[in-house]
């Protein structure tokens, strides 16, 4: 029964990924992406990684896609801008599907041990304590550098998106009033 649930979730993930990649309007892509992230979070819960599942929702679905949604709504593009000329080029799709099939085939013939059920997880797998212990003990440098990276991103975005406020001279306003 749980296997059926896994196949359902995996199938819906692939379907929603296809909808994300092939819908003409970016806002629809963003909304299907939210669904895709929810399904990914469900998959992580199936694997027993609770903390990772909740963080996936918090960061990806709750912050990154919100950022996308804001930019899409703010830019407020003409419908022509978005859907004009979005012809699907099937060659790239077919190419990747062939690559997918090739990888499947290789997985099947290479190592039959890959097709066995996974060994049971440890008792504290996926808990926040085990995760934080691993991160602070073994990856503390990377953690600090990730913090620095986030700081750089914040500063960079502030610099890139800053627009000097345009100062309108009072002379222009007078001209407009006379002309009106």
């Amino acid at each position, binding site marked *: 029964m749980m296997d059926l649930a896994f196949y359902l979730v995996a199938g819906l993930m692939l379907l929603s990924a296809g909808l994300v990649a092939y819908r003409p309007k970016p*806002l629809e892509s963003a909304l299907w992406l*939210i669904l895709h992230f929810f399904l990914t979070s469900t998959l992580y819960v199936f694997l027993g990684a609770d903390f990772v599942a*909740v963080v996936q929702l*918090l960061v990806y*679905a*709750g912050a990154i896609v*919100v950022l996308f949604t804001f930019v899409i*709504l703010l830019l407020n593009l003409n419908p022509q801008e978005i859907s004009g000329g979005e012809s699907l080029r099937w060659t790239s799709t077919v190419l990747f599907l062939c690559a997918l099939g090739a990888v499947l085939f290789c997985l099947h013939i290479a190592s039959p041990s890959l097709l066995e059920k996974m060994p049971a997880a440890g008792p504290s797998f996926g808990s*926040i304590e085990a995760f934080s212990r691993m991160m602070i003990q073994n990856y503390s440098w990377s953690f600090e550098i990730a913090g620095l990276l986030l700081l750089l991103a914040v500063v960079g975005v502030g610099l890139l998106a800053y627009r000097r406020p345009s100062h309108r001279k009072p002379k222009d306003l007078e001209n407009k009033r006379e002309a009106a």
Partner: protein
Amino acid sequence: MEDTTILWLFLLGKIVLFFSVVFGMVAPIMIWVERRVAGLVQDRYGPNRVGPFGLLQSLADGIKLVLKEALIPQGVRNPYYLLAPVLAVVPAALSFAVIPFGPPTTLGGMFETPQRLQIANLNVGLIFVMTVTSLSVYSVALAGWASNNKFSVMGALRASAQMISYELAAGLAIVSVILLSGSVDLVRIVETQAGLWHIFPGFLAFLVFLPAIYAETNRTPFDLPEAEAELVVGYHTEYSGIKFGLFFLSEYSIMTTVSSTAVLLFFGGWNLLPGLSWADIGIDIQNTILGTLMAVSWFAAKVAFFLFLFVWVRWTLPRFRYDQLMGLGWKTLLPLAIFNILIIAGFMVFA
């Protein structure tokens, strides 16, 4: 081990209880409280015609909303216009899955091991509450944008920018509580407040958390996005009838969620008093039904006080201007929250 059918029935009972109480009772009662307290503060009567003391006013309003014409204005972007109220209610309902409303209890011997009074026993319950609060931004943004109305778009952008700014401050205030209690499980956090409530070492955290949750729910003094004088109700101008009712319902549900979170994190949940526990006065909250009911009612009373505080502040304080609001969130509350984490960490190490 328990009989699984009893456990399933208990789960069903919890779900039914939660949804009937929160969506069926808290929202209408809060609307009545809001309007009566507004009248009290403004030295006038609130609604007092419909039923004794105006108690049936909420019911009348609900019936009116449901029976109104389901109007869809011309030119709205249709799937998003209808999706936005749904996206408002779903996170509001989802967040109740992890809020415990009482101590783990055997309900007077019905169960062998104490069962939690939470619908979903997540290890990471507190982070789930934060997650779900941050998902409620979508309904605001989509509602405003889909409404084909410039004022709605402005209201929506302001409201969502405000919500994501204050989420950060609230999250950092929560981090200090996680430091103090050593766990993100909400029941564990209440259990660690058996002696000293987290409000005492974490007073600054509470001082940051409270304005942050007012801004998260778009309540005064942070309700410029839905201010009637400036923006004609803002992002839900074009919604009428049951669609508006859903937005309203979600606002009160999220208010209840964040009030419950504030009580669980800072005010000891169902613990009696900062030094006194239920066991000290001889009440067993785990094994007797009466004890459990008393603990649950005490928790409900605290949550009710916080809900009343929401209403009281709304009708007392004037609203912030938008730049004052954003300045408060980024330049005051966020540094204060970071400073507070340092203080709490120092407290944990040296005391």
